[in-house]
């Protein structure tokens, strides 16, 4: 008797496994994988904070889509493209992950976006920076959410020339990313009527910027553009303060700066720095409300644009799954392009054919210590840059599948 019932149970189980649970949602669950840098150079600006943001999006959506549960998994790619690729492959092949979110580090982005394209899954890039992700290396199921090099370089470059900073000198990290950032900024500077007096390529990574700063000083350019990121930018800004560069009248333009970088520099050193950002927590009531909720879960830190972008991208994805009535990547991608993005992060944002989410950017200046009234009160917003002005126009696209269509 006992054996018989066990047999029946096994048979029932087999049946349950064999019959598709839902016609729309593959394997009965929508799984979101957050893949980023949990321990390395980018862990403060995305890392666990991005995972928390994605979890908040899932909670705010109600924890279920099309009646099926939503699950969040996360992993550390350690900024190694092979580990990233390995995780992505395993997530898709074995763990049935439907969408991969965040993705700092362009090398990892490129690898994972290709895998997602080949295996028909969605990837939502928030922290990755390079413009090629929606250009030369675009993917029909890959989306780029928060910012890109082009928007940052152009935003800061144009704005500073307008304010009178019309001669530039670049400190450029000597690798593809730095070159790219310098190029797009220099273009914006010359287009707005400024001139580039010169540039120096510093090794990557670089501890000591003093001699490069001295060269920048000797150039007598009004603006020193920092075409680097993370630790390099932090060191450059810190040492510029030490050498009295800003006091002597030259201005610094950080081309890729996150609020976490400002936090670690301190206002005394960072004051006056002009940056372009995709999001600022203290912009309006809506951003404040969300950021404070996030902050309560993250030991009082405030979200970077990358972390806020993860929330917005995840939310939009879930809405698109709902609208498409399926989690099949192409159907979801279609809906993602149709529905406008409207949340605390972006107003009337739209997802372009090439996967770029176009939304307004902010030009901000870092406050003086005496103007900062409370914790994380770091930016003064100088200007809102309309999305269409900020991002690379789609008419200049090099995206292969769009070119084929034409």
């Amino acid at each position, binding site marked *: 008797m006992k054996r018989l019932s066990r047999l029946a149970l096994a048979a029932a189980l087999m049946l349950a496994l064999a019959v598709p649970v839902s016609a729309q949602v593959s394997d009965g669950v929508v799984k979101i994988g957050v893949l980023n840098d949990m321990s390395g150079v980018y862990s403060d600006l995305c890392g666990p904070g991005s995972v928390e943001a994605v979890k908040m999006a899932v909670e705010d959506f109600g924890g279920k889509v099309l009646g099926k549960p939503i699950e969040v998994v996360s992993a*550390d790619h*350690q900024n190694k493209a*092979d580990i990233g690729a390995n995780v992505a492959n395993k997530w898709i092949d074995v763990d049935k992950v439907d969408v991969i979110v965040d993705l700092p580090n362009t090398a990892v982005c490129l690898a994972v976006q290709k895998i997602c394209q080949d295996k028909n899954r969605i990837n939502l890039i928030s922290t990755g920076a390079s413009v090629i992700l929606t250009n030369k290396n675009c993917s029909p199921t890959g989306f780029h959410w928060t910012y890109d090099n082009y928007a940052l370089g152009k935003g800061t470059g144009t704005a500073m020339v307008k304010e009178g900073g019309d001669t530039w000198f670049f400190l450029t990290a000597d690798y593809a990313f730095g070159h790219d950032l310098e190029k797009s900024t220099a273009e914006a500077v010359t287009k707005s009527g400024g001139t580039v007096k010169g540039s120096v390529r510093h090794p990557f990574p670089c501890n000591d910027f003093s001699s490069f700063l001295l060269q920048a000083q000797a150039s007598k350019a009004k603006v020193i553009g920092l075409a680097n990121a993370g630790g390099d930018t932090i060191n450059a800004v810190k040492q510029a303060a030490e050498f009295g560069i800003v006091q002597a009248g030259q201005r610094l333009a950080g081309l890729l700066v996150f609020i976490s970088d400002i936090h670690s520099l301190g206002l005394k050193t960072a004051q006056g720095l002009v940056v372009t950002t995709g999001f600022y927590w203290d912009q309006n009531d809506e951003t404040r409300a969300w950021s404070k909720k996030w902050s309560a879960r993250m030991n009082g830190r405030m979200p970077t644009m990358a972390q806020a972008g993860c929330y917005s991208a995840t939310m939009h994805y879930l809405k698109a799954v709902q609208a498409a009535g399926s989690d099949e990547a192409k159907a979801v991608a279609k809906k993602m392009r149709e529905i406008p993005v409207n949340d605390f992060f972006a107003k009337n944002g739209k997802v372009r054919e090439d996967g770029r989410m176009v939304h307004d950017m902010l030009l901000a200046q870092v406050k003086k210590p005496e103007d900062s009234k409370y914790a994380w009160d770091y930016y003064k917003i100088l200007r809102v840059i309309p999305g269409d002005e900020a991002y690379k126009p789609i008419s200049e696209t090099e995206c292969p599948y769009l070119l084929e269509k034409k």
Partner: protein
Amino acid sequence: MRLQKIGIPILLALALAAPFVVYPVFLMKALCFALFACAFNLLLGYVGLLSFGHAAYFGFAAYVSAHAAKVWGLGPELALVLGTLTAMGLGLVFGWLAIRRSGIYFAMITLALSQMVFFFCVQAPFTHGEDGIQAVPRGRLLGLIDLTDNLSMYYFVLAVFILGLLIIRRAVGSPFGQVLKAIRENEPRATSLGYKTDRYKLMAFTLSAALAGTAGAMKALVFQLASLTDVHWHASGEVVLMTLLGGVGTVFGPVVGAFLVVAIQNYLAQMGAWVTIIQGGIFVICVLIFRRGMVGEVLEFWRRRNSEPPPSGGHH
């Protein structure tokens, strides 16, 4: 000997069946690192030279073969050969420089030279800096077998791995290998016996670099990318760890070590910086307590049980 007669066919059968049980991409990664560690062990275990810069050959060969396969459109076997040859050339030059000193100096020199390669790779245009060389085609083996399928790629990797292992065993077992061991035990004596020890060391170094290159080139094909990770000194440290953990100077030690370290990386990936701490901890424990490594300790246990006399040397 009896152990080998039974053991090797069993291992081979396991290796052939493994991809049906374990995720093949993981296995391929582990095999690439296993070959890398075996190549490294050839130098440390049999000549007594600790290279702290083997990532240079591993990573640079990965770049060359990735570039060859993607930009020049070479087939996988040619890309692999080209990567190996480049690593061999690099090994010849670096080895020639490094064997001028021994011991700790040798370790520091190889580390510094590999750091030079790293900075070169950051800046050289063909490596695409931080982005790496992406979407490298796996291609068709000899124009016939499509390697995009994970299973066929796995068997290709396994075949190359076994070939590499056989080359190492052949080198170690030959008179050449005997001279190497003599150098490890007592270099002045080997010199006085009339051996040009520098030449032997250089040959071993070059062979080791070449095989490390094969492993790196293969990894580039498996993951379809070559990136800075593989030329970074962390990779050099990892291969030392694998060899030490598995057992320096044993044939299968580095293989066991490679599988364990890769498994730690893969399965503990979400733990972030803890992976570094765990790796550091393993280093410390191995050096202080298990200097023979896992395989070495097992062999030692076996030997003691059968109360064979301890081997001459085998350890330092």
